[in-house]
């Protein structure tokens, strides 16, 4: 995983709520056995016309001003539904490394942090202000500073956000979660010894 560094990037606006992972990456693209190459299919059914190839000009992210955006500002309960990690793979592969919303579905939220994506939670009024700023000035750039948990914007809608220090540390260092867990392998071994005594039927 790439370490997450401070950046100033275009913020794209998608003013939709309850965007589910079926929309983020439709099922026909889940048959691949690789982790890469999903970006071209991100939001496929909305993004392309019925031919599946030409861009749908009405879809938000197809606006010229939002090209090369790294920040995605979206409505609440983003990423609900299926657990497919193909959703954050597609988001990251497309080029986003930051999402800003009022809420995320649980599994999707976890999946983001495993893939170098910072999912920031804001209040409804903060989100409204950010959305209004983008709508008034499409192509506007926000600065995201994870180390100091700060987002700044040209119109002054910046804020400090909350994030679990463990997730913050992992994103900043780009550390592998599994490696971290395996530092506790002796504790896992001990737990299993005890587990076998307490619940022998699980090991029969």
């Amino acid at each position, binding site marked *: 995983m790439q370490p997450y560094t401070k950046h100033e990037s275009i913020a794209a606006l998608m003013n939709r709520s309850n965007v589910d992972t079926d929309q983020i990456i439709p*099922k026909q693209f889940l048959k691949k056995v690789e982790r890469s190459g999903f970006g071209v299919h991100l939001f496929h059914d909305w993004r392309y016309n019925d031919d599946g190839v030409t861009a749908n000009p009405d879809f938000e992210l197809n606006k010229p001003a939002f090209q090369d955006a790294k920040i995605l500002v979206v409505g609440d309960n983003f990423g609900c539904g*299926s657990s497919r990690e193909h959703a954050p793979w597609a988001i990251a592969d497309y080029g986003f490394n930051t999402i800003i919303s009022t809420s995320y579905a649980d599994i999707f939220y976890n999946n983001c942090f495993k893939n170098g994506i910072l999912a920031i939670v804001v209040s409804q009024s903060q989100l409204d202000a950010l959305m209004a700023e983008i709508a008034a000035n499409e192509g506007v750039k926000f600065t995201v500073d994870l180390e100091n948990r700060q987002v700044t914007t040209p119109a002054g809608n910046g804020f400090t956000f909350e994030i679990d220090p463990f997730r913050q540390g992992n994103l900043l260092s780009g550390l592998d979660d599994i490696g971290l867990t395996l530092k506790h392998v002796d504790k896992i071994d001990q737990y299993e010894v005890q587990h076998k005594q307490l619940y022998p039927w699980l090991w029969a």
Partner: protein
Amino acid sequence: MKKTMYEKIWDSHLVVDVEGQAPLIYVDRHLMHEVTSPQAFEGLKLSGRKVRNPHSILATMDHCVPTKNRNLPIADPIARKQIEVMADNCKENGLNLYDMKSHNNGVIHVVVPEHGFVHPGMVVVCGDSHTATHGAFGALAFGIGTSEVEHVMATQTLPQKKSKTMLVQVNGELSKYSTAKDIALAIIGKIGTAGGTGYVIEYAGDAIKKLSMEGRMTLCNMAIEAGARAGLVAPDEKTYEYLNGKEFAPKGDNWEKALAYWNSLPSDAGAEFDAVVTLDAADIAPQVSWGTSPEQVIGVNANVPAPESFDNEGKRKACESALAYMGLTANMPITDIKIDYVFIGSCTNGRIEDFRAAAEVAKGTKVANGVTAIAVPGSYHVKDQAEAEGLDKIFIDAGWEWRDPGCSMCLAMNGDELTKGQRCASTSNRNFEGRQGKGGRTHLVSPAMAAAAAAAGHFVDIRKL
């Protein structure tokens, strides 16, 4: 201290809890299918790691598999490769796989209970959001992403944030026409698809106690559709009776030890929950979803809502866009909605009781003109049982297709899908845009409601049949 069932399971599975790190919890059972595992196996291999406890894993093939002409090779080369990779990965790592040719094959969340692989008090994960199903046994069961699949394979643990607890109390008695599916949909209608976010739900109350194990599976299956991490039902005599004698259930002395442990699991009287939601089962009519989110659901006797009937701007907008996508008019009666397709199956409603309920309604009817109806058993064992009871004949005589098991039209990955504009009465769990095929329109219902719609060509209030 008085503890909820969730807290008991959490505490007994805590391996590491140190300042500055997410708590690590132990995973007892890991379920797998072909779609969310290949990249995890690849990651494991690349990092030179091994599967820590192969015995904790049970794998099947379900999402991509065809539900007809199973003797032929899979036509889609990418799906075929995914199936082959799954077989290779399981062989290489010594995992128990019920492949397409196995008589034990079927949808993972149908197969696992059939073999008694999940017991009360376990922590169970799967790269699949509908893992919540196994909460029916009083196990903490939840969906994870592929990176987490790799993590569990390598370490048998997961870093987890402790959830809040929500008690959903369903009092009273359900009418004989309403089912666990209707309870699940009514709850989501009440609290919304984000209502359970951050929570583990425990379902309790007379109406829940009266549900069969299969009904409890249907209910817990859709906990994720309410946004919850997991759903739980306290284990009781029904749970034990269901498990007793199954392949992976404890035997002999171990059965007695397990029973003693299982009996200690239910939430202590007076244990506190972070939130409580109460419903009266008698109020729950057979439900029909009308929109593109499972929270957009209403009783069959009602009318399609109008945007202005919602009290907040977000919901008004969602209603407008759902009506446009679904091709419905505000205030039209639900029973006026005509359908093109019917699907009975999935990890929500693909078990024997579901086919019995549907067959009871389908018996002696004919599928309406212009309607295609498919019945897709959740597993070969469900299929066999249905055939032993003659249910297949009832469906076939009524003009239904009787298929081989798989996820099929629940997510339409295997070629079973709607075309643009087609409308389906479906016993599955998600009515998202495009879920059953691009431009397809999904209405979530119970099996009996689906069967009644197949015969009439539109939704029917089964209480009036």
